[in-house]
């Protein structure tokens, strides 16, 4: 009897997936990012009350430049986390790659782009090696990349040699983190981004209509477009009122959008999620699980190298500390704070950006308040713990309500 009712209820639900259904999709899909955005607003409010320079255009521009390296490295980390694995070597890899670039550029006089390409190739090769060792010998990724962390730090010292530090002078390299576009170019960027996003939404909508789905309504798409357009316009307005839109921000945004596309809309990305969710099921479905794993670690190494290049560009130098300190842990903590699961199969590349923003804001705000690194580290640790606890509670609620 009750089963019959449930069945008819199911049928009814299937036949009219109306506004409540769409609303549910939006809310469930973006719940964790909404939580993070609220967290960001809270953080901004707290710092703004203490120190009114926090939300100034100059400081927000600085903040964006500060998070570029962590954000780029986190993009690779998100992929590793989606597999349910961890890569502890990304900090060291970013330092080593940057050192390779600096040595080639400064000591050997290589063309800047070739030097950068060599650095990225080093990162990709290291990631590929670690991924192969991990998948071929079924060693925990934790251990393989921990060994990598030590070895690549040693390699960094070796590459830098006796000097221990190299100053980068090539403007093509230093420009990466220090070029700002004029106001006009900034507005053109904004227009292009909004137009491209609108076009993508429109194409998707028209395809669904053409396919004859009855659950399509243009309203959510319009809301999304307006929302994104508002964010883009406000961001460009703020950046323009200081030094302009930085090239570094465009690079970070480009990688986040591009890698989010790969993760969510390509068959490779689908396979990453499948392996992270149930590797055995993926294997039986004919997915080459080990290839996916190697590719993901290669992505992590590549993104670490790109992050390292940006860090060197911003610092105008590579030294023995490059890629060291808490960079690695912050790059992993960021996506986790922003809602990418440590257990694999759940997350989004946007969490790389959002997480970097949370961590960057805290660090930047405490710098403005001239707090010591001791306090900064403890607060950042506390935020990470809080984020993971909130996530765990949310997961438990999903389980009790039948959602795994």
């Amino acid at each position: 009897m009750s089963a019959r009712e449930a069945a008819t209820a199911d049928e009814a639900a299937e036949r009219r997936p109306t506004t409540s259904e769409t609303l549910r999709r939006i809310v469930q899909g973006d719940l964790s990012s909404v939580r993070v955005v609220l967290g960001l607003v809270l953080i901004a409010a707290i710092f703004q009350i203490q120190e009114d320079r926090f939300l100034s255009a100059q400081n927000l521009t600085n903040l964006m430049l500060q998070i570029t390296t962590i954000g780029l490295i986190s993009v690779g980390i998100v992929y590793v986390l989606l597999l349910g694995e961890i890569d502890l070597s990304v900090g060291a890899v970013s330092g080593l790659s940057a050192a390779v670039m600096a040595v080639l550029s400064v000591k050997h006089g290589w063309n800047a782009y070739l030097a950068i390409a060599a650095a990225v190739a080093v990162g990709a090769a290291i990631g590929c090696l670690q991924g192969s060792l991990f998948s071929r010998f079924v060693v925990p990724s934790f251990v393989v990349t921990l060994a990598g962390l030590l070895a690549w730090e040693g390699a960094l010292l070796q590459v830098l040699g006796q000097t221990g530090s190299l100053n980068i002078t090539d403007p093509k390299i230093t420009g990466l983190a220090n070029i700002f576009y004029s106001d006009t170019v900034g507005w053109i960027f904004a227009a292009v981004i909004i137009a491209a996003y609108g076009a993508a939404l429109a194409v998707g909508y028209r395809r669904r209509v053409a396919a004859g789905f009855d659950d399509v309504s243009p309203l959510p798409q319009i809301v999304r477009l307006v929302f994104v357009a508002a964010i883009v316009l406000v961001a460009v307005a703020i950046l323009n009122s200081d030094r302009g839109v930085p090239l570094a921000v465009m690079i970070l945004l480009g990688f986040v959008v591009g890698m989010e596309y790969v993760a969510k809309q390509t068959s490779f990305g689908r396979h990453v999620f499948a392996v992270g969710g149930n590797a055995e099921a993926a294997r039986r479905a004919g997915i080459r699980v080990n290839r996916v794993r190697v590719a993901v670690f290669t992505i992590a190494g590549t993104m670490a190298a790109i992050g390292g290049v940006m860090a060197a560009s911003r610092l105008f130098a590579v030294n023995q500390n490059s890629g060291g300190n808490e960079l690695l842990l912050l790059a992993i903590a960021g996506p986790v704070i922003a809602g990418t699961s440590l257990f694999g199969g759940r997350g989004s590349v946007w969490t790389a950006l959002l997480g970097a923003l949370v961590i960057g804001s805290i660090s930047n705000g405490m710098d403005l308040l001239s707090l010591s690194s001791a306090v900064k580290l403890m607060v950042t640790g506390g935020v990470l713990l809080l984020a993971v606890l909130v996530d765990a509670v949310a997961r438990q609620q999903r389980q009790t309500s039948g959602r795994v």
Partner: protein
Amino acid sequence: MSAAATPLLELDGVSKRFGPVQALDRVDFAVGAGEVVGLVGDNGAGKSTLVKAIAGINPPDAGTIRFEGEEVRISKPQDATALGIATVYQDLALCDNLDVVANLFLGREQVSPGPARISRQLDEVKMEHETADLLSNLAVTIPSLRSEVGTLSGGQRQQVAVARSLLGDPKVVLLDEPTAALGVPQTKQVLELIRRLRERNLGVVVISHNLADVFAIADRVFVLRLGQAAGEFQAEEATEEHVIAAITGIGEGRDKNHENQQPEKGEGA
């Protein structure tokens, strides 16, 4: 050459040995198009071994397999898939974190036409459309095709797994314990689904411990005991007592406790 004259899938004298254990001993087995065969037997009787032999996971040591009248070699799972034999294992092998559409097309995603093909962009619209068509053909009701499979009930998950096996357009479907661990209404849904497979003229082999379920859907019941064929019944003519007698090998059913203490022979329950 009608389906009745030549069975779709025919095993002839198939044997399989695991070390000292003779898991299958000269078994003859057949399933025709539009026929549901219930494969029953005690733990360790060789049911799963037989299915794995057909599915290419454990190729037999001896005997011949004929598919549509022609002798074939099935030495790996891909061989079985290529012939048109699909298997739904008991653990279903679904990704809980992916939605119904993604699970159905896992490993054979549809790629968009046009320039986006370079990046192997998923054609979500096409996949969702085909999923909706397939599920409605099978009269499977799932609240939303975009809900994660982990949020579905056991019966719905089983139905998704069965539907997935149909995407490759198979001719024979092997189902390993499709109703185990399901409640009464869910079992009913899955049995309904199996009937619809028969209506699509597929050959269906169902392993089950539950004789009531077997009698509810099977046209024919095939009994294995200690790796040997121990009886074959037309479901309409046989009674549960006959089948139980064949399963246990004695005139009357034994008490449950004793039955459960039978040593298992390399076969998951």
